[in-house]
């Protein structure tokens, strides 16, 4: 039972991807800041799952990714989970039935959905009593997260697509 056996079973793939993304988010991406803002790969997981697997998977992956991230934040536990669930579901709903022939569709979706996700996070955060999340800086945060996630989107969408696929594995890079 090695890594190969683990990755060939679809049930293990999604948790594996979420865990890997969490480590990247906490240890690497939190250092890669532009104007003090880091990309949000955990939000991107939900978006990518919505794009590749539809609304339910988008919501489910967004929920798990958000909950995992919430364990390491000071904001109320469940806030990221709620926001990422809604964003993953929305992306899944909007993208269902659209032919994803072009490479730029995931990129643009990641850009718009990530920026919207940051606004939603601040909005719901304020509603549950977090102080001063809505400020002029929010626009800067949303813009930089949007661009950062758009850059990460092609690879993340591919990996998440592989992890949520119901069909037997075709290998990671043979899509």
């Amino acid at each position: 039972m090695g890594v190969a056996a683990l990755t060939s079973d679809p049930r293990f793939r999604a948790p594996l991807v979420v865990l890997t993304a969490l480590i990247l988010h906490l240890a690497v991406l939190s250092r890669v800041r532009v104007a003090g803002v880091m990309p949000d790969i955990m939000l991107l997981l939900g978006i990518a799952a919505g794009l590749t697997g539809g609304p339910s998977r988008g919501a489910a992956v967004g929920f798990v990714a958000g909950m995992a991230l919430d364990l390491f934040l000071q904001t109320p536990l469940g806030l990221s989970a709620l926001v990422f669930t809604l964003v993953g579901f929305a992306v899944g709903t909007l993208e269902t039935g659209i032919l994803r022939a072009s490479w730029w569709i995931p990129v643009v979706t990641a850009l718009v959905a990530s920026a919207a996700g940051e606004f939603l996070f601040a909005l719901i955060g304020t509603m549950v009593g977090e102080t001063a999340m809505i400020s002029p800086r929010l626009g800067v945060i949303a813009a930089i997260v949007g661009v950062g996630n758009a850059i990460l989107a092609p690879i993340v969408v591919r990996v998440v697509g592989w992890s949520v696929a119901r069909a037997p594995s075709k290998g990671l890079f043979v899509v």
Partner: protein
Amino acid sequence: MAVYRRSRRHRFVLLLLVLTSVTAITLDFRGEGDGLLDSVRGGARDAFAPVQSAADRVFAPVGDFFGGATRYGDVKAENDRLRRQLEEARGETLRQAGADRERQSLLELQDLTFAADIPAVAARVVSTAPSNFQLTVTIDHGAEAGVAKGMPVVTGAGLVGRVADVSAKRATVLLITDRASNVGVRLQSSGDVGVARGAGPGTPIPVDLVNIDVKVVEGEPVVTSGLEQSVFPPQVPVGKVRTAKVAPGALKQDVTIDPVVDLQRLEFVKVLQWGSQP
């Protein structure tokens, strides 16, 4: 019909997950510190600590690269040493600036020096917040080393923030520039008190409630007030006055300060084992 059923299933999944999130948020608010959710959170942070330390070692050069700095080896070590010396010197200057007024206060109260008699835990900053909405750092000591929620955190130069959350091996420090941070401060020369509320990263900290007829000088040192019930001990350097002006018709002054500690480059800190209600 099939489409209808499928979209109903999607909506059911969404509803379930949203309700679970909202329940978690509610429980987190009601838990007030010792709930099940807190222990889950603490467990996750402790479990992740070794992974994070390893990843930090591996990826530290990445961070340096993206930070726009290319300091390696000896240069980095020397730079860090010099920076620490400079910070300490800066703090020293600040402390002496208010010496006259302080001596007077000392005569009355006798026990006022910057944290000298408070037991402290030295700690290393291991990571910054994995978030764009909070200004915190994680340090490598937690409850096992005697760190507790609410304790003030300082460097040789002055105030860094306070412990916002603690697990067995790690603690999260809320920086004084975070928007959720409030610090009771005293203007060192005039002696007037106010509240320094964080305004975000790299932004000068506004000080509220400064009396309109107090003369505030630019560059004037600002220290913690340490009034009764304060979470910070008195006379810890916080910053220097950057701007001070009175808007026409205003009832208070607009004062901003620059933190005396370089909060972007924290490396070693001390957690003061100090509580307002011992």
